[in-house]
């Protein structure tokens, strides 16, 4: 513990990630939320070979422990579990982007000099609530006028998919390939929620959730936690940028149902801060809570022209062995989406890929620059992170 009261000098280089760890994302993990978070934290600290008392700050990403688990004061309870006192600790809430928002908070703490070693832990235990309660909790992130219409997040995704198919040349079968790809990636990831191959026919025959989207277009929610140790040192994976942008609360307040301005803004800010362009990105973890979001976000991030992202899926460019692998860990679609854990799990996947730690059957080859985007709600608030490997 070095700078717990915040008297350090601003950092003149990028923070680095020296340790990562997570639990298996799953439909139901019997362990309590605190134990999940602690387990992920211990794995990240072990990976970095650091003991808890050497941490300067604790940043906990969690969306709704009060509602799912009747647990408040999460950061304080977690500090106690980890045997840490006398440092700054807080919980960050930004719905489904709580994880990346906590990471952004830690990034700022390191860069400002307030912290030399920041532990970020994101997680959620959603299985504690039944499906109806869970749907209600998640649907309450909408504007009151959207709530009144009975709108859910899949509703927005259904509207966007309907619009995309009408505007561009992609069709329902093309979109199914997003789920097929991400399930195939998850099969190689032992931390993923799903270990199940799906075919285009499986997707097209699954139950309709929000027409034209079906069950296999939607990510599973569940239980899981992920943790990262971010430091002011110069060893490890470089965090070249972490930027956030808020969008409109009401989705219809946007100029077009296919636009997610918060992703575009966060992405452009991150590219500028990292001094890279979309062409420099070798691998990306995209917030595919619904299959159509993978296309919309790839376009907002400039990784494809507007109306063209579907072609990258269909022609294999975004496969593990393609020139721009997207969601090699399975994405939200198949790695799973325990809300507060997701943004951190995306960063961990990039770290594994950049360090060359991903197993051969999941490694995406020679990568030096990775991007992750974690999105709150249906684009209400987005956080974009750019990581660089040692040779970048």
């Amino acid at each position, binding site marked *: 513990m070095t700078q717990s009261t915040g008297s350090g000098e601003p950092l003149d280089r990028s923070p680095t990630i020296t340790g990562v760890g997570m639990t298996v994302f799953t439909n139901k993990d019997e362990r309590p939320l605190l134990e999940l978070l602690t387990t992920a934290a211990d794995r990240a600290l072990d990976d970095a070979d650091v003991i808890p008392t050497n941490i300067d700050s604790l940043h906990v990403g969690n969306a709704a422990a009060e509602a799912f688990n009747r647990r408040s004061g999460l950061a304080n309870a977690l500090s106690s579990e980890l045997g840490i006192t006398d440092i700054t600790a807080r919980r960050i809430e930004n719905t489904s982007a709580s994880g990346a928002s906590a990471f952004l908070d830690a990034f700022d703490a390191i860069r400002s000099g307030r912290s030399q070693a920041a532990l970020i832990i994101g997680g959620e235990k959603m299985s504690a609530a039944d499906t*109806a309660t869970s*749907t*209600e909790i998640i*649907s309450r992130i909408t*504007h*009151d*006028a*959207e*709530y*009144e*219409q*009975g*709108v*859910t997040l*899949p*509703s*927005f995704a*259904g*509207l*966007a*998919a*309907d*619009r995309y198919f*009408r505007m561009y040349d992609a069709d329902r079968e093309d979109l199914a390939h997003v789920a097929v790809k991400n399930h195939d990636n998850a099969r190689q990831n032992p931390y993923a929620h799903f270990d199940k191959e799906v075919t285009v026919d499986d997707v097209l025959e699954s*139950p*309709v*959730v*929000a*027409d*034209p*989207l079906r069950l296999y277009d939607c990510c599973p929610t569940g239980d899981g936690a992920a943790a990262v140790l971010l430091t002011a040192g110069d060893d490890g994976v470089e965090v070249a940028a972490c930027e956030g942008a808020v969008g*409109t*609360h*009401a*989705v*219809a*307040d*946007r*100029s077009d*149902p296919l636009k997610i301005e918060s992703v575009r803004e966060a992405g452009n800010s991150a590219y500028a801060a990292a001094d890279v362009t979309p062409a420099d990105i070798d691998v990306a973890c995209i917030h595919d809570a619904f299959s159509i979001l993978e296309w919309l976000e790839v376009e907002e991030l400039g990784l494809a022209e507007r109306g063209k992202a579907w072609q990258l899926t269909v022609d294999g460019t975004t496969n593990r062995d393609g020139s721009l692998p997207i969601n090699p860990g399975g994405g939200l679609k198949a790695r799973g989406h325990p809300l507060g854990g997701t943004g951190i799990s995306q960063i961990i996947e990039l770290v594994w890929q950049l360090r060359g730690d991903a197993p051969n059957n999941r490694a995406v080859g020679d990568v030096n620059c990775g991007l992750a985007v974690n999105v709150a709600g249906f684009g209400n608030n987005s956080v974009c992170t750019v990581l660089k490997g040692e040779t970048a």
Partner: protein
Amino acid sequence: MTKVLECSNCGYRTFYKKKHCLECGGQEWNKQEPGVGELLAITTVHVSPEGVREPNRLGIARFEGANLVAQIRKGLNPGDNVKLDDSNILREGDNGTHVGAQFAPVDD
């Protein structure tokens, strides 16, 4: 009746109540008749929160300067012109029964 809120300072229009204008920060709003909109996309939702109809047919429509997501009547398709028809039961939820606007054909 559902109205468009128009910022009295800059003219920004929205259906979604907020204290400050997204464009200029102004706090004064004029209520305007929405007129006729064009349906941009539709969906039929089969998994709804408690108190919401299943299936819930929803659409997004573009009116002059402002878009809106609302429940739609059967038979409407993207490209159709729509008007707002008030006094429909939308859902049971916080504060009891919510009554409000659905999209309806302009000649309804």
